[in-house]
């Protein structure tokens, strides 16, 4: 990689992109079947991810049901995931936290195997 290309990439990172593109690339490649990614495509994905973080944070904050308006909590985020169609894909990784006792109770209510 010539010195100029490195310079260009560093400038891109400093001025326009906060997330490390190398890490984004690693994550992309850990997806099954993903082959090669063009450098510009990688840049677009990185930038889109940044926008996503901003979007998610803002959305959650605005629709936050917490009493404290100057705070963003886990449940604010979980709420945003459930309410917005766009963020639906996140529901797998952010189950709404429930109290342990409620969970245990719901286990008791499940039909037991072997009962006729």
């Amino acid at each position: 990689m010539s010195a100029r290309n490195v310079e260009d990439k560093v400038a891109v990172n400093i001025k326009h992109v906060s997330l490390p593109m190398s890490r984004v690339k690693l994550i992309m490649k850990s997806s099954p079947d993903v082959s090669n990614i063009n450098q510009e495509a990688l840049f677009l994905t990185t930038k889109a991810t940044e926008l996503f973080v901003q979007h998610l944070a803002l959305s959650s904050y605005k629709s936050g049901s917490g009493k404290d308006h100057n705070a963003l909590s886990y449940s604010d985020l979980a709420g945003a995931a459930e309410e917005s169609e766009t963020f639906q894909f996140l529901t797998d990784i952010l189950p709404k936290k429930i109290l342990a006792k409620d969970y245990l109770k719901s286990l008791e209510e499940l039909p037991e195997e072997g009962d006729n």
Partner: protein
Amino acid sequence: MASSSANDDDLTIPRAAINKMIKETLPNVRVANDARELVVNCCTEFIHLISSEANEICNKSEKKTISPEHVINALESLGFGSYITEVKDVLQECKTVAMKRRKASSRLENLGIPEEELLRQQQELFAKARQQQAELAQQEWLQMQQAAQQAQLAAASASAAQQAGSSQDEDEEDDM
């Protein structure tokens, strides 16, 4: 942040980068630690989502490499179409900046000197170098000459001495 297990599933965006972005987006807002951790994981999930979709689009297009077009189409089909304009704008901006920088640095290399002048300077340097070489060659030749002369002189005096020695011998013989 060292991790003992290099598990693909553990790959995430560095926490510090996320924290910085959250701070810039929501200044003066307290964000719980578990919420931050969640955002980090959401990022990874988002990247996987986009990559998979873009990859599918890429496969259908029978191309081997995921291109910007594939990513843009993926964003559109997944409901993130609103990101597209800004993402494209930034890409264009970067290309322009990169182009300007390349032009500027090549201009710097020339120091603003036109090509003709550079050629003239080059010819001058070559001529100078040739001259220096010629002078060196001449010096060497002279040295060789001197060395050869000295060698001749030495040989001549040696043979002269020898001759003088042999005539002396003859005299001695006569005396006897």
